[in-house]
């Protein structure tokens, strides 16, 4: 499955300062679909190069990170249970406080 993953608000610094990643990801063995839960594990393993605690806390993203699937808050699509489809765009963005 081909996905576009984008990191922003400083999260790109955890993956070699690269904001946009075009990736191929396969559903876990024995599963037909790929969920956001699976994707988080994949990202943690394959893209996050440093300070993983700035991305993950427990089994989900750390507080202050917004997750968007096709420009839509993942809270609206089922959060960790969101099923991903071919060519989906997933954005991970850290909320900013500066001004």
């Amino acid at each position: 499955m081909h996905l576009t993953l984008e990191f922003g608000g400083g999260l790109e610094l955890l993956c070699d300062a690269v904001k946009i990643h075009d990736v191929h990801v396969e559903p876990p063995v024995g599963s037909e679909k790929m969920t956001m839960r699976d994707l988080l594990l994949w990202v943690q393993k394959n893209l996050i190069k440093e300070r993983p605690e700035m991305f993950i806390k427990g089994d989900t993203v750390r507080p202050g990170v917004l997750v968007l699937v096709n420009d839509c808050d993942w809270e609206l699509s089922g959060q960790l249970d969101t099923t991903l489809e071919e060519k989906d765009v997933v954005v991970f963005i850290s909320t900013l406080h500066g001004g």
Partner: protein
Amino acid sequence: VSGTEHDLTPDMIYRYSRQLLLPSFGVKGQSRLLKSSVLVVGAGGLGSPALLYLAACGVGQVGIVDNDVVELNNMHRQVIHTEAYIGRSKVESAAAACRAINSSLEVIEHREALRTSNALEILSKYDIVVDATDNAPSRYMINDCCVVLGKPLVSGAALGLEGQLTVYNYNGGPCYRCLFPTPPPTTACQRCADSGVLGVVPGVIGCLQALEGIKIASSVGEPLSGRMLLFDSLSARIRIVKIRGRCLQCEVCGENSSFSRQNFKDFDYEKFTQSPMSTSAPVKLNL
């Protein structure tokens, strides 16, 4: 434009003529704007353009809260201040600039830090609040105060080369805590003083904050509630995304929340976010 009822003086008609000409804004929008009051918290990078455009467009009253003084290292982005004001109060400087571009505007100066002890009293005097602060505890505090008082909150942020914008607590929409119930780790709460910011990035976001304030005050257009604007200046990409609605379990605005004025006054926002409201000493550059 035909002769309908309105309160505009001939001077106002001339000053705001280019806005009165707009069919979807017109006399109605301008009259509502002139009757409204907006508080801008923070006269820094975001507050500078927000205040300039709110003052210029004909909002009735503009309030400014800030406790800082103007410094030379602010001036690459805080364009409301001139070098003549270095060392003096940002509120005094910003208020003078607002009056210089629009003498018919009422400017209210709050030369103090916004705290739980004074926030309820200050915010209650305004229709709309603009969050132009630079730290996480202030953002939670302003949000909670707006929820307690039922005020719409135009929230902008800028850091590095990116900016974010949304409207909270508007017309049944989400509040800041609906999106961020748990504060981020302190290492994720960087300030412009620590991490830097390209000066024009808060410029863009601050202008957009003024626009959202104007839309709410004049009841024209669709405010950015339930949506968030994400701005990446380097790639010139702007996304407007759909965010969650009001969270029924929100500790502050949720259905069963009992968060009261007294709870607000007693809440320790610096402890909650484990980070300070006031600016710490800036990073030393060793060039």
